[in-house]
């Protein structure tokens, strides 16, 4: 009996190894190890040809903190990401509420309509705005037609913001819908019966109870926005540098390329992201109490 059990245990362990090994290997080799490499690179320096020189230094980080080009990119990216997240939340919450409160047979189709842009190539969706905002584009044609005349709508930070909100909105709506759909709306009636106003009931019952959706949506919007470079290039006209633009340039196009500095920027971006998300989690869970 004991031997049988031992045999079973050994078989279980072998099975677990077979299940785990391919995934563990892939993620360690092609995800964790590369991250370790850029952390190491961030403390190195480079030569005139853009090759990495293995000579430990803190110069990259000092450069980032002391040169306005770099430090400003951090502030600009953080500010733009916060703005994008807040606006997506303000647009997405009512929309998710609308879907969750629609008659049952409409909910799936309405949600599908959110899913289609979510599954559509991000680049294609951003490109679509070029057609609308371009100087000889659709919106300017319309403005001219109604007598306002042409305006410069593209190649500015406003256009970047529109593109980001447009691109990320579906990521906000989906988790919000999931949270609101689980919310028991009879609680709102109970609150009203007890004399709470609609605003009070929303702030003290519905918002805290749908907070997991708010948090998930915000994180899903914030992360890609912080590192974006496509939108600011295609709609913003690459006039000002966001974090993503600088990192991309340092790795691919600068002359000479500077991987150590680019790595330091990427590592610092990860740290900023972790700190901000942790602060956000703490703030939102405290609200719940």
């Amino acid at each position, binding site marked *: 009996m004991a031997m049988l059990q031992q045999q079973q245990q050994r078989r279980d362990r072998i099975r677990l190894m077979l299940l785990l090994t391919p995934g563990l290997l892939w993620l360690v080799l*092609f995800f964790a190890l590369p991250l370790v490499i850029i952390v190491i690179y961030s403390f190195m320096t480079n030569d005139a040809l853009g090759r990495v020189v293995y000579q430990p230094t803190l110069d990259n980080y000092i450069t980032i903190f002391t040169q306005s080009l770099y430090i400003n990119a951090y502030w600009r990216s953080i500010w733009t990401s916060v703005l994008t997240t807040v606006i997506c939340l303000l647009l997405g919450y009512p929309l998710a509420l609308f879907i969750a*409160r629609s008659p049952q047979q409409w909910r799936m189709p309405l949600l599908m309509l959110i899913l289609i842009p979510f599954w559509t190539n991000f*680049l294609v969706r951003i490109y679509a705005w*070029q057609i609308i905002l371009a100087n000889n584009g659709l919106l300017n044609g319309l403005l001219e037609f109604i007598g306002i005349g042409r305006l410069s709508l593209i190649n500015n930070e406003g256009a970047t913001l529109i593109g980001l909100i447009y691109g990320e909105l579906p990521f906000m709506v*989906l988790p919000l819908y999931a949270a609101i759909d689980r919310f028991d709306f009879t609680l709102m009636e109970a609150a009203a019966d007890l004399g709470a106003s609609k605003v009070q009931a929303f702030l003290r019952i519905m918002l805290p109870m749908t907070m997991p959706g708010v948090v998930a949506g915000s994180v899903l919007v914030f992360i890609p926005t912080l590192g974006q470079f496509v939108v600011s290039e295609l709609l913003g006209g690459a006039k000002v540098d966001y974090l993503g633009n600088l990192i991309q340039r340092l790795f691919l196009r600068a002359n000479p390329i500077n991987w150590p500095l680019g790595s330091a920027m990427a590592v610092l971006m990860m740290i900023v992201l972790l700190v901000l998300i942790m602060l956000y989690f703490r703030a939102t869970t405290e609200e719940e109490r």
Partner: protein
Amino acid sequence: MIKTAPAATTLARARGVFAEGRLTWSGLVLTIFSILIYLFLYAPIVILVIFSFTRDEFGVRWTGFTLDWYIRLFNNPRMMGAAWNTLVVASVSTVVSTIIGTLLAMAMERYRFRGRGAMEGLIYLPIVVPEIVMAVALLAFSAIAFDLIKLVTGETLRRNLTTVTIGHIAFSISFVVVVVRTSLKNFDRRLEEAAADLGADSWNIFWRITFPLILPGIIGGALLAFTLSLDDFIISLFLSGPGTSLLPVEVYNRVRRAVTPEINAISTLMLLLSMVLVALSQLLQRRR
């Protein structure tokens, strides 16, 4: 991803906006607001599609209907090559990440073992790490790996479709695990116990009970992996080498130079493909 509400709460909620058949003021405002958001979401896409049929060479004015841009697109070897590359990379990436992801999901859902928490972190980290960080990390890694290979074998390697595929698999695995784990969670394990009681061995139990029941989840994960790979731009840009361009990278390079309706045409086709994939995943979900 989306679960339908149980029947009891459905009734309570159906009263929502259209309470007892009449529209409340707040409901009306909410409805108008939502319609405007849907317009905001769809206007650009609709315009993009319409202008893939315009004769205007800048693609921003309607000067008559034509299919020229599609014909030109199909005769453009660069674009067609990029489209083919994209499909090959997406297919390989989907197969590999679905297999690896499903195995991982089984391990995480069915076993307790030391280091499980760390494994959990390793699986979910790729979802929260910004793609550009993953891209530059993989770029640096590939450079070092190529140097090492040259040192050992003397062979000079370049970034190509393989490096892109490896990157796509690395970020797709996590999403597959999330989707497959959901279907394993909803799984009634008594079915497996019943089969074991009836004398089935574990191989038979897996292929005849477990696998068919979690198959919708696996297909859902595979579809997600496929779309993620099709849509990916950042990792594709950093990891593809010269002459091995992928569709999103090709579109990006062309948009930066000049806008032509040919890009609208390829975008429309990509849009069509996404819609087919959404429809497929929804059909599968309904069957579940």
